[in-house]
């Protein structure tokens, strides 16, 4: 079996796990200013306080895994998106410490609430723009990035950045529908409708832009016989999007969240179709970027042994804190 392909799927899984799990954390951060200071914000933050750290670890697995399995891709993409990565990291610094600091200093809680939402917004935007910068192509010479340090800033990357912000806000609001009740849940429901619609529109816009951006991308989606293989992705996306909006409106608890994740899964699958088999689109394939067999095999042993355990104890941690936040008898 080709370990390079296996590793491409492992990295994709780590990125997907990060995007949905820290996605709802960051989404709650983005939406934080719309919640009233005090009880509303406390409940929103407490719904993720026990799990955000584990969620964020998937980002380290995505980055560390890329470094280990596809070192050339790591060495090209990060310098190419340098300001975005630095902005994301600093955003995550503010977001992360705010979880602790806002309780430590009631006099400055408002400041740390702003740091929480500002950090989340910047991190989400930077992540989305990094995706856009990757999709629009990166200039490579030899084994290094060869473009300038502003190449990542284009209308297209702004669009992917906004799409990610909207998507995270959707995940965050659907998570809150699940974890809250009463007025706060109604508020989350209103947010979910708004950001759900925005996500769907922006996903559509990015898809259209992708096809216009690059003839190769268009060929993958629109020419026969590929179209028969890939057509289910947009069709399923439309079905899931419709069901999700209905579930949000119909007073469902956890269903909107799971459908939101399904929407992200389909979006990621679409991205996979678009860029396969490149690690850096149009420049470096996954086989060119791959670490040697010995590195891949050694790590695969580790993944096979630990990933099931990680998923098991992560699931347990979620189970421990299941139910609505801050009410009697919710377990």
């Amino acid at each position: 079996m080709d370990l390079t392909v296996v590793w491409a799927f492992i990295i994709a899984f780590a990125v997907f796990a990060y995007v949905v799990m820290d996605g709802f954390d960051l989404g709650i951060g983005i939406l934080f200013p719309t919640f009233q200071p005090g009880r509303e914000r406390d409940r929103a933050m407490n719904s993720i306080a026990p799990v955000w750290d584990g969620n964020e670890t998937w980002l380290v697995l995505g980055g560390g895994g890329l470094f280990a399995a596809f070192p050339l891709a790591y060495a090209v993409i990060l310098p190419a998106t340098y300001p975005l990565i630095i902005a994301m990291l600093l955003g995550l610094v503010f977001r992360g410490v705010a979880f602790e600091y806002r309780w430590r200093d009631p006099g400055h809680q408002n400041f740390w609430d702003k740091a929480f939402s500002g950090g989340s917004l910047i991190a989400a935007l930077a992540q989305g723009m990094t995706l856009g910068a990757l999709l629009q192509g990166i200039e490579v010479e030899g084994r290094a990035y060869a473009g300038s340090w502003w190449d990542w800033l284009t209308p297209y990357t702004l669009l992917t950045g906004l799409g990610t912000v909207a998507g995270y806000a959707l995940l965050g609001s659907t998570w809150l529908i699940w974890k809250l009740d009463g007025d706060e849940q109604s508020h989350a429901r209103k947010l979910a409708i708004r950001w759900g619609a925005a996500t769907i529109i922006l996903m559509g816009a990015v898809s259209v832009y992708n096809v216009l951006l690059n003839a190769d991308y268009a060929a993958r989606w629109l020419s026969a016989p590929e179209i028969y293989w890939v057509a289910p992705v947009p069709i399923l996306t439309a079905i899931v999007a419709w069901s999700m909006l209905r579930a949000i409106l119909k007073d469902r608890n956890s269903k909107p969240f799971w459908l939101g994740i399904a929407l992200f899964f389909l979006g990621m699958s679409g991205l996979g179709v678009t860029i396969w088999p490149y690690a850096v689109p149009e420049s470096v394939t996954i086989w060119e970027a791959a670490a040697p067999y010995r590195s891949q095999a050694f790590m695969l042993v580790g993944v096979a042994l630990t990933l099931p355990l990680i998923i098991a104890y992560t699931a347990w941690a979620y189970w421990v804190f299941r139910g609505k936040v801050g009410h009697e008898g919710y377990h």
Partner: protein
Amino acid sequence: MLENLDALLLARIQFAFTVSFHFFFPAFSIGLASYLAVLEGLWLKTGKSVYLDLFKYWLKIFAIAFAMGVVSGIVMSYQFGTNWSVFSDKAGPVIGPLMAYEVLTAFFLEAGFLGVMLFGMNKVGKKLHFAATLMVALGTFVSAFWILSVNSWMQTPTGFEIAANGQFLPGPSWWDIVFNPSFPYRLAHTVMAAYLTTAFVVGAVGAWHLLKDRANPHARKMFSMAMWMAAIVTPAQIFAGDMHGLNTLEHQPAKVMAMEGHYQSHPEGAPLILFGIPDSEAKTVRYAIEIPKFSSLILKHDLNAPLAGLDTIPDNLEPPVPVVFWSFRIMVGIGFAMLGIGVWSLWGRVRGTLYDLPWLHRAAVLMGPSGFAAVLAGWITTEVGRQPFVIYGLLRTADAASPLDAPAVAASLLAFILVYFTVFGIGVWYILKLMGKSPHAGEYGVKRGDVGPIRTAGITPGPTQNTGGEETLPTHARDEKEPV
């Protein structure tokens, strides 16, 4: 050319700055996680509430330190790619998998169980909670294992092959890579350093509160525990440091020459230079205070053993001597000061006056931050001593950097400096505020407002619900009068 040089220098400053800041937090949280596990274990075993109170007291501090460690650590995991892309491309196949193992076996373990450790005691029960605490402590140790293996491989690379495209590739045995020659010594020395760092912080907090009230049972307990660590671990640490030094002499002799300030070779026994001002231009240590032949005794266990000096190393392969020379002396000096505290505490303990020695308590307060200074100085010694190489003897630092423009690196460096000093400065201040509060009976744990993952009981609790007894768990803080 000049522009590239500037970008390189800025990238080096940025890495040194972010890694130094980051190192403080794990240096503290590795030891503190273990201390918390010990406290909770003793509470479960003995049922004495003082252990539970101390557990809750330090848990609040741990939560802040851990958060700072996490966010500054994520920066590190990306900085290899952002600023050292050539290094990443070349060394990725060898060190990448070790870092991936760190994520899989350590980071997930810590992060996955942290939520239960901080908030879950009254949800999962005592035993499961203790298991979660143990997992977090284990995770911090496993993390140190892998990252120190990576660092050691960069110091003493073994078990690799070099490909036609210049990449370092793993050889047939991963064992040779993971357990490279300097790794066991570096692991022992660094982990003990982390334990001592925590012990001296705990000791300083205990001493601070003893100075205010020498009868405070909680302060007594933590001070006593910390002083046991100081008395037992410091000698072991000095021994491990000596072994590590001998290992370095074998594998990285130029680093030891810089540590010792030996510009010249000494065929008939080298002096131990205690102090002096290294002058790399003139290749001499000015105003040196030295003990003849003593360096040969320490390094070769023979007064007359010849020791080579930096005159045997080409100038362009020489590490910056003054930095290494001084940082080494700071580390060693602090080590012996720690030993002094340990011995002093033993003397007090034997005489039964451990809690009645205000000068010991004052000295312990003063030594509170000493572990951090020693860790940083030791880190500078080993990292600067490796220069001009990033992978010792094989890849120069100057050839490892990303193709970035100087303004980009300058801007990010400025941003890191501003954000780190502000954010982590504030975090340290919050920690100091918590430490300034006296540990007391019925200590509450990590509090998160009136709602949250932490509360299971009614919405409007009565003041009688909290008995403050041992069955009360860290998060039963609902009628806590004291502000958080």
